[in-house]
């Protein structure tokens, strides 16, 4: 397993000008990003929707690469999204999955069949042509350049160490620096989109 923060540092070197949806990796990505106005750190508007949100951005912005850091708990809620993404086959969409095998923000309870689900195989069986799976940062570091040189949709499953939170929600430190609506407005301004 790898540390999410370390993995994101490696990824950052390959980001280019892509739009990044950091998902559950948001707290590590926000201080790391060199293009915050091209980021969409959404936090958790409603669990189960991140992949479809990423697809929506990718379909609306075919001229931009869209990178999503999804999580396995989120994806398990909406596994059918893999078929929808494969059906649309956006060449600009890169779907990374942070698999920590648990619901970290509720105390670390395991997701269903946590250690045995092979998400890259699910993605491939759903129609993704290019899928990968990594358990170590070294392997990921060696492959990320090649992965990003390929057309999407690409699926990359990564085993990451859980960062379990038991603190009551009201006492947790906020990592978001902008509201969700502000995040969208900033992206649209950056892209020259008139709302």
């Amino acid at each position, binding site marked *: 397993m790898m540390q999410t923060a370390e993995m994101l540092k490696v990824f950052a070197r390959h980001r280019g000008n892509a*739009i990044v949806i950091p998902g559950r990796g948001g707290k590590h990505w926000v201080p790391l990003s060199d293009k915050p106005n091209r980021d*969409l750190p959404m936090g*958790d*508007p*409603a*669990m*189960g*929707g*991140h992949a*479809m*949100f*990423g*697809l*929506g*951005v*990718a*379909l*609306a*912005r075919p001229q931009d690469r869209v990178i999503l850091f999804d999580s396995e708990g989120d994806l398990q809620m*909406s596994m*059918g*999204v893999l*078929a*929808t993404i494969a*059906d*649309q086959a956006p060449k600009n969409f890169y779907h990374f999955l942070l698999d920590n095998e648990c619901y970290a923000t509720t105390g670390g309870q395991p997701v269903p069949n946590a250690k045995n689900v092979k998400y890259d195989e699910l993605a491939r069986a759903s129609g993704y042509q290019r899928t990968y799976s990594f358990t170590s940062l070294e392997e990921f570091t060696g492959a990320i350049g090649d992965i990003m040189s390929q057309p999407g949709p690409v699926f990359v499953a990564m085993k990451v160490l859980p960062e379990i939170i038991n603190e009551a929600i009201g006492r947790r430190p906020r990592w978001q620096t902008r509201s*969700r*609506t502000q995040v*969208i407005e900033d*992206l*649209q301004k950056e*892209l020259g*989109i008139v709302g």
Partner: protein
Amino acid sequence: MAESQEGFLSPQTVLAELKKNGVTHVLWLPDSETNWLYTLMKADPSLTLVPVSREGLAFSGAAGVHAGGGKPVILIQNTGMLEAGDSLRGWGLSLNVPVVMMVGYRGYTRHGVNTDTVADYTEPFLMAFGIKYYLVERDSDAERISIAFEESRKKRRPVAVLVGDEYHGFN
């Protein structure tokens, strides 16, 4: 192509309304008898059809399309709308996404005697979420679809169109 029928809502009319309002992406899960509309939309190069496997995904997908500068519309049935409540809240209302959701009004009969319990809960559900809705049953009601688009744009929030003729006009 079916002839336009007075008293029914035709798929051609629905498609014309979507195009008039600049829709770019249709996020949908088919409800009963929508095959004509699907055939028409599929043949239209200006629309991207995005099929989802459950209705909540239509809301997060619409939020993404909106964030990227596209204009989404959601086509679902009232059954799926009920299940999609948290996605509607989180990905629709809380993100100020201007989107029209056209909702097949299963169980609605115009006569006050609903044929499915989902019809009993449809309007109370929308009221609970504070979502304005318009009922469309026939071609002569179609301008309400444009009114819904205008309202969603001005207020930057989801607005519903209840399609009360799903068992006739789309067939």
